[in-house]
């Protein structure tokens, strides 16, 4: 009896000691916090995730184990999303900034979703900032002031270095996309002094890096549309199955009507998908066009830079809108966004022309014409209009000062045609090699022929030339 009492007391004592020394379970808090967030209970999720963070602040990959299942620990991500759900953008932003500093989530499966959340937070924070009144009494929604006093009002620097850069081959013409019509007239191009040019190039490089985030060609909008299409197809199959089981004509008619509605929905999705693809390709073209600006046009006007940043913001907004299409299935939104972007873009380019026409040193008329023509050739090439680009090159004699760029364009066009012809025309390859070799010898900077502007194949070919 006594022994039994001692035994049980020992067990109870051990339990009490162990319980007292037991620490909080960050895994449990984290998993439950995530579960609460999935059930839209953001307030409870915040409490649990903060508790987990307090116990284990650092994110880690594969460090949560449930039996044989391993999962990552990103408390700041889910905490940020919980704050986002409650419109507490500053706190969400702080969480996302912490994540960015850790540099782990960018390599995870959550990278895309995280990037999108970041963008949403930044957009909301920007929207909350007081707007500078537009000059000349012509306010434009969301546009920064163009008076030049102060830094551009476009998006503050997005922190993520992240995701992937679109490296679509320029050799591949955008088949599904309607060609972009450029209203840009041949314009006299200015020249710049070297210092300012370098400064601008640096700025454009920064902007380009941001553009790398916008992967419209494989964007979430298309994925969303495809998912929607699959769902509709499933619904159609279900409806057809039910119909087959029906006995009465009345019920059969009802299901026929239901089926018809679903088919209509499917067609709508198909159309949306086409438009989304076009939008993706078109936005890719625009981006390529922008990419050509630093090398094709020498800009020296702060207002122009500001416009450039504004357009960039519009592109970012476009991506947000496309993402919303994925969530809300609003078919009109994508078209609307692209329309607005096109308007802004060409408006910007048209207004850019006079700014560009202020030469620091007067070029000859022939130089101006040649430069503008060459610029058009590059624009056509970057838009995938290879034949048009070739005609421009063939019809424009090389002006000595710009001969390297002329040779380069002719070389890349030859290489593109060689690739599109199935890599069989050795003469084209030989011509491409010759032009590109000469272009390099004539002074094309090495950092111009990079994957930023050209396909990896071409860059590799170029670098391999002796």
């Amino acid at each position: 009896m006594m022994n039994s009492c001692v035994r049980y007391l020992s067990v109870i004592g051990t339990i009490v000691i162990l319980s007292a020394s037991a620490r909080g379970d960050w895994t449990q808090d984290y998993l439950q916090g995530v579960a609460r967030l999935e059930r839209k209970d953001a307030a409870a999720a915040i409490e649990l995730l903060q508790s987990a963070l307090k116990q284990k602040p650092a994110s880690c990959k594969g460090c949560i184990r449930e039996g044989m299942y391993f999962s990552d620990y990103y408390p700041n991500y889910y905490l940020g999303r919980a704050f986002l759900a409650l419109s507490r953008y500053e706190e969400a932003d702080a969480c996302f900034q912490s994540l960015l500093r850790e540099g782990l989530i960018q390599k995870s499966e959550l990278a895309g979703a995280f990037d999108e959340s970041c963008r949403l937070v930044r957009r909301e924070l920007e929207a909350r900032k007081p707007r500078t009144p537009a000059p000349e009494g012509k306010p434009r929604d969301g546009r920064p002031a163009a008076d030049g006093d102060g830094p551009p009002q476009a998006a503050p620097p997005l922190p993520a270095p992240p995701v992937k850069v679109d490296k679509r081959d320029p050799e591949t013409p955008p088949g599904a996309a309607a060609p972009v019509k450029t209203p840009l007239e041949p314009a006299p191009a200015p020249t710049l002094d070297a210092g300012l040019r370098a400064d601008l190039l640096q700025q454009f490089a920064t902007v380009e890096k941001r553009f790398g985030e916008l992967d419209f060609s494989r964007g979430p909008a298309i994925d969303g549309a495809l998912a929607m299409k699959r769902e509709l197809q499933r619904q159609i199959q279900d409806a057809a199955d039910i119909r087959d089981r029906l006995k009465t004509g009345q019920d059969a008619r009802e299901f026929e009507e239901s089926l018809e509605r679903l088919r209509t929905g499917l067609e709508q999705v198909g159309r949306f998908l086409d438009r989304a693809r076009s939008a993706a390709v078109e936005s890719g073209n625009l981006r390529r066009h922008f990419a050509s600006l630093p090398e094709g046009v020498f800009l020296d006007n702060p207002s122009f830079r500001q416009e450039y940043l504004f357009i960039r913001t519009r592109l970012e907004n476009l991506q947000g809108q496309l993402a919303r299409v994925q969530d809300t299935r609003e078919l009109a939104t994508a078209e609307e966004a692209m329309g607005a972007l096109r308007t802004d873009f060409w408006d910007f380019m048209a207004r850019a022309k006079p700014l560009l026409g202020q030469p620091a040193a007067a070029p000859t008329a022939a130089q101006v014409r040649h430069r503008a023509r060459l610029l058009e050739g590059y624009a056509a090439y970057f838009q995938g209009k290879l034949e048009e680009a070739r005609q421009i090159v063939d019809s424009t004699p090389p002006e000595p000062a710009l001969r390297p760029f002329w040779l380069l364009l002719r070389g890349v066009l030859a290489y593109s045609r060689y690739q599109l012809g199935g890599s069989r025309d050795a003469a084209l390859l030989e011509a491409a090699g010759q032009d590109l070799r000469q272009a390099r010898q004539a002074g094309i900077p090495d950092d111009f022929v990079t994957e930023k502007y050209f396909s990896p194949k071409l860059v590799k070919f170029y670098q391999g030339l002796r």
Partner: protein
Amino acid sequence: MHANHATSIRSCLAALLLLFSAGLAAAQGVSPINYNSSLFNRGAFNLQGQGARAMGMGGAFIAVADDATAASWNPAGLDQLTRPEISLVVNRFARSYHTYQDETLAMEPPATGGSALLRYNDEGQADATNINFFSTTYPLEIKNHRFVVQFSYNRLLHFTNSEEFWEQQNILSAPPDGPFSTERYNLFSSADGGIDAYTFSLGTTAGRGVRVGASLNYLKVEARDITVTDAASVTPPTDGSIYQEFFTQVENFNYDFSGFTFDLGVLWKIHDMFQAGAVYHSGFSRNNFDYRYSIKEFARRSDGTSTTLDFNASGQGEIHWPNGYGFGAAFKPITPFTVALDYSRSNWSEGKATVTTGNTFERQYPLLLPDSRQKDTGSLRVGAEYVFTTANRLAIPLRGGFFREDQLQNFFQNEVGEDLPTPVYQGFSLGSGLTYKFFEFDIAYVRMVGSEDLLGTYRFEGGDGVSATPYTKSFSNNYDSRLNRLLVSIIIRF
């Protein structure tokens, strides 16, 4: 005269054999209840949790219990599951054993100087494939408190059994005529049924890092057709005395009972790297033990006379199923690596079947031997698991374990019929598997071996109530048991 003398010697020797061969009654009196004991003893009696993952770790899982088999080890572990899961465990087992007993009795002058050799050779084996665990687990939330519930079916022990063996009894010599007789019995036994548990379990969080759980088990024990078929082959005695020239016997034994038990479990996460667990299994007493026994026997003697026996017995009474408990610790120095240690104990000395109506008896359960002397059993298990993961979330584990298990009682007794220390069998396990996305597959191989020996020569002074004649008894007894199991688990996560 010779005949009378020889008969008295044989009677004397037979009486001694009966007295000192407690493990086996006289060959003709073999009781199927003895064979009921073989269903449980010798490493087969292993009422622990289920699952190839756990068994791959040697069965050290009380403080781990983090998959869909959790409740069978520690219901508190259920709280570690965050998604609905279903699981299925298939078990293939093959048990074999070999008993060899040589016991020689030598009577001393001035009585007879006769001697006898009693020899048993018992080779049994059992193998079967069965689904021994199925569960469905679902986490739910009630008033902001999270619970995880599980329904499961668990075949704790499979009775399927098949044995073939023979027993031989030689009266070697009784002066002056040399060997009297050799009696050989060929036997076959079989059984079916098992111990099944239908369980509802629930796990939840009790506090910071502390999880608790409980299970309610409906336990159903059913032993069907424990059958022994016996046929004798007898060499006539050299002295021409009357002997039993033909003998057959068929015995059949069935019993069943059921009851409710509960399990209570606790799991403490004391540190990120250390977790401890404890579990208590309740017993029960119910008045629904029901047995039926029959024996049909025909014997013909050399003088042309014969005897038949057609005996039926049945009874009802109370069953007492004992309680048990276990402790475990798990150490996780890094996320993919786990080392676990368990100790559990079952109070089998308290297991009892008391039949009070019909043909009554009171014996210890589960062995149901007439001379019940079964002990509490302890089990010590240690295991480890390392999981290799790839970038695309494929997980491949390697597992190993070692365990030691006390047996219910020693097969042999010493020269004066006293218990020998309870044998401890030991074994190892190896396991692996593959987990990808929502699918988990585990496989484990378990091997347990045990051996018991009794060797020696003892002199008895007599005066024991059977014979006043001093005699010498030599033992050369050995028992070997091998149990091989192959378990396959499939767990699907939703």
